[in-house]
C-alpha cells in the first residue's frame, strides 16, 4: 500500500473517473481502513511505482527499533511529520521527537524573513 503523503501524478480524467466511481462502491469503501491510500493500493494493485523512503521519510522510521537501520539523516530529501503532535504545536527545546527541531528551526527562519518583509499575521 502506498503512503498518501507524496504522490507523483500525471493528471488524467479517466483515472479520476475511476476514483469517483470507486467512491460510490460501498463494499470497497468499507474495507479501506486507510482511506485514499487504501483505495489507490487496491485500484492499482502492483501497478504503481515505488519511490525510495527518502522522498516521504515518515518521522517514525527514524526511531530506534522501527527503521533506524536504514534511515540516514543526510540522505532524506523530504521528512513527513505524521501523527500528533505536529511540530508547530511544540516549542524548541521541548519537542517530543528530535526531528521536530528541524522544522522549528526552518520555520523560525521563515518567520524572521517574513517579518522583515512586513508579514506578521500569526501563521
Amino acid at each position, binding site marked *: 500500500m502506498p503512503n498518501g503523503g*507524496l504522490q507523483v501524478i500525471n*493528471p*488524467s480524467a479517466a483515472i479520476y473517473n475511476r476514483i469517483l466511481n470507486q467512491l460510490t462502491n460501498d463494499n470497497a469503501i468499507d474495507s479501506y481502513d486507510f482511506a485514499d491510500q487504501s483505495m489507490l493500493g487496491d485500484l492499482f494493485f502492483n501497478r*504503481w511505482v515505488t*519511490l525510495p523512503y527518502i522522498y516521504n521519510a515518515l518521522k517514525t522510521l527514524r526511531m530506534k527499533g522501527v527503521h533506524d537501520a536504514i534511515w540516514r539523516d543526510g540522505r532524506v530529501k523530504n521528512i513527513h511529520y505524521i501523527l500528533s503532535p505536529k511540530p*508547530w504545536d511544540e516549542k524548541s527545546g521541548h519537542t517530543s521527537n528530535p526531528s521536530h527541531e528541524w522544522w522549528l528551526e526552518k520555520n523560525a527562519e521563515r518567520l524572521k524573513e517574513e517579518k522583515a518583509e512586513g508579514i506578521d499575521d500569526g501563521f
Partner: protein
Amino acid sequence: MATTNGHEASGALPKKGILSPRSRPSATLRLANALIVWTTVITNTSYLSGLLALDYSLKQSGSKYPLVALYTATFPEEGLAALERRGIPKQAIGYLLPSKTKDYTNDPRFYDCWSKLAPFSLTQFDRVVQLDSDMLVLKNMDELMDLELDAPEMEGKGNRVFAASHACVCNPFKKPHYPKNWYACVSRWIHAISS
C-alpha cells in the same frame, strides 16, 4: 536521453516514455510548455503553518516549480488572505467523500484524506506532485517531475499509474485498530530503498 534538467529544452520528459519524443514531434512541442506543479491540500488553518513552512522549504531547496495550495470550501477567508500575502498560488477543489460514510472515529484524520485524490483531476497540468502539508523539504527533489509514468491516454491501465513510497505497516505505536497483518514490513522497505 532523459535528464533531470533537460525537458524544457528537449521535450524528452520521460513520463511520455511510451512514445519517443523524437518520433513524435507534436509531443515535443507540447512538452516545451509543460505545466508542472507541487500541490498540497488545505482544509483548515490548523495546518497552515505547516503549508507555509513546506512552501518555504521547497523554495529554499531551489525547486523550479511552484507549490499550489488546493483549498476546500471549509478553508476560511483569513487563510486565503495569508496565502495571498505570501504570493502562494491557490486553487479551489471539491471536498471528496465516499457516498457511504465510513467510520474513522479511531483516526479522524482520514476524513480529510479523500480530498488528496483531487490532484488526479487537475488535467490543466502535465505533472503534479501532491504533498502533505506536514512535510519539510530538506533537499531538492525536482527529479520527481521527470519520473516516467504512464501517459494520461493509458487511462490507468498501465503498470506505472502513479508513484509513491510504501506506507510503513509496522504499527510502532501498537494502535489496536490497525490491521492484524501489519507487521514485519522490513523486507518491503529493503525493496523500496533498493529500487
